[in-house]
């Protein structure tokens, strides 16, 4: 069985190890992993900043690159929901591309959901010694309705203790260009989140979205705290 990776631009340029981890887990489960080289981005940054035309340009490229993929697996809730929930709006006046979206979107899977619902694997043979807490990233939670899945996967990791934080569902404050346009508010939101993480005394915070982790890590480093940020794929890949 073959799956295509859409690693997302953030993972590609900043956290490539997340993409490698995702590939390792999928291969461990017996999948042949393919990486269409021409992939770039889903277009979300332009769409969220109020530039639908520019978003369309990028989205068209995405549809072209993954046209023939049987499964597209994505280590990001927000990029996945961009494709499965917002391409509809982006292509509403382009019937050809809209049809392509309808054909491709059902084959696009956020990583944890792919593992549970397609690979039907809850235990992927991972081992991670330590206490972690989990951050529910907003698009994954509210648009894709991903809540228990990642927790079920973490529960099966040998040696791992999951400690829930208060306000696990509160936004980390990234919001893409929001963090650039309103940096102080964004920073304040991250600090509130980090207070919540500290209370759990976990040594790491796990999420299925790298942009959230990037936001949190930036403030964690600024505050000099001994907390790691880990993508779910990295935890599941560890032995």
């Amino acid at each position: 069985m073959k799956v295509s990776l859409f690693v997302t631009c953030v993972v590609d340029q900043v956290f490539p190890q997340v993409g490698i981890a995702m590939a390792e887990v999928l291969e461990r489960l017996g999948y042949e992993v393919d990486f269409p080289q021409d992939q770039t981005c889903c277009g979300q940054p332009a769409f969220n900043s109020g530039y639908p035309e520019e978003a369309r340009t990028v989205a068209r490229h995405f549809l072209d690159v993954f046209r023939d993929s049987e499964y597209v697996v994505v280590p990001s809730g927000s990029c996945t929901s961009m494709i499965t929930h917002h391409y509809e709006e982006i292509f509403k006046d382009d019937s050809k591309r809209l049809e392509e979206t309808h054909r491709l979107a059902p084959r696009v899977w956020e990583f944890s959901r792919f593992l549970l619902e397609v690979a039907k694997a809850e235990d992927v043979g991972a081992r991670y010694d330590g206490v972690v807490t989990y951050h529910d990233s907003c698009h994954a939670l509210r648009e894709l309705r991903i809540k228990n899945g990642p927790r079920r996967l973490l529960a099966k990791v040998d040696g791992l203790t999951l400690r829930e934080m208060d306000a696990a569902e509160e936004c980390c404050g990234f919001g893409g260009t929001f963090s650039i346009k309103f940096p102080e508010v964004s920073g304040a939101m991250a600090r509130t989140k980090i207070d919540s993480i500290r209370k759990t005394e976990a040594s790491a915070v796990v999420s299925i979205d790298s942009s959230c982790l990037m936001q949190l890590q930036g403030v964690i480093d600024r505050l000099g705290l001994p907390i790691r940020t880990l993508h779910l794929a990295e935890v599941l890949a560890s032995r």
Partner: protein
Amino acid sequence: MTGAPSETIKQTLDDPRLQLAIYTASGRLMDHRATAVSAGALPEYQDLRTQANLIKKHTIENLDYYLEQLEANVLAHGGQVIFCKDGEEVADFVLGLAKKNDARLIVKSKSMTSEEIHFNERLEHHHLEAVETDLGEYILQLAHQRPYHIVAPALHMTRYDVADVFTKRLGVEKEVVPENQTKIARAVLREKFLQADIGVTGANFLIADSGAVVVVENEGNARLSSSTPKIHIAVAGIEKLIPRAQDLAVFLDLLGRSATGQPLTVYTSFLSGPRRGEEVDGPDQFYLVLLDNGRTKLLTDPEKRQSLYCIRCGACLNHCPVYRKIGGHNYPWVYSGPIGAIITPQFHSITEDGWLPFASSLCGACAEVCPVKIEIPKLLLKLRSEVTEAKRRQGAGGLERLAFQMFAWVMAHPKIYLLAGRMGALLAPLVPPVGPLKKWASQRTLPRPAKQSFHQLWAARKSK
């Protein structure tokens, strides 16, 4: 971002007392709501939301029909209906009525609609005293401040602030115990209720099939405002309509629970005109003032008119991580939080308030709790593209537009993207944080591009 009140936002963020007040007050309201709509307390909650959305959609899309029905029924019960285009027309009407009836004193219960049109200020210079009677609003009126929250107007004030206001404005000795402060206000306002010539209330709902206004409250001041004076005026936006009295079963269940966690507020008044027949008390005259003030403009937009479904519960404010940081006074209008963010640019100007739709991380918590299912994040996105388009027409925002055009071009050309990525990785350590990067860097350490992109790592992996 240009246009945003960055200074005052920063002040609010740097005030630990205020941050704590906003966070705990909104947090408490969130918890109360969660309990009240939990599967154990209200298993049919999601069905009610769907139903409320459908009723509002139907009503808003047939508003002229229901307005006619409402008017006919108000008239049938002895009341009068006055359609007002804006605050000035409302003030003209009230002043005319006051003059005709020799009225000097007005008592008012809480009404965001009246705040919207600066009702009290408009009457100020005409020898007409308008007193707010809701405790929070009364304190704000004395302090000359705007409400901080749709449901909890004085959220930002401490008992010491209240003590100061009372001492300064009422001349009483300093009193810091909330129970006693309430007693002071009760005594002062009771006199006003008993002497007032006119009582003005808002309306949470207008009932078309009954010619009635529904007013919900916890204190009793709306009941008093509509029962002791001889004249009762209800001021309401035209979007407050619902078709039938029986629809209240759905709406009242949602309103109290979403706002404060109460299945019903202490008083729910269903008022349909002046006193009748042998009723012992109640007003002699009833006027329903229906306000447009820009609502008809929103009605014409099929995508965004769902903004008018709002029943002013405040749940979106309580759940908004941005509101919980910047508070109500950093929003430019009387309506704050997510609902304020979507209606302010629609009522005012897309360019003047153009920063507002961007002051959101699009987390979607608001849409999840909106009892009438307004798609707030979707409308924020729509407004964002309208803002950039408006800027383009004005010849502004060129730099950002260029940046995103370049972004789109790079992302549509994989080889350029790969090159740009690697150049970024090489140059990043040399780039000082300037411009937008500087602001970002003020809050956090910048992420470093990886030495090798995934593309490169994958290629290396494959070759093994």
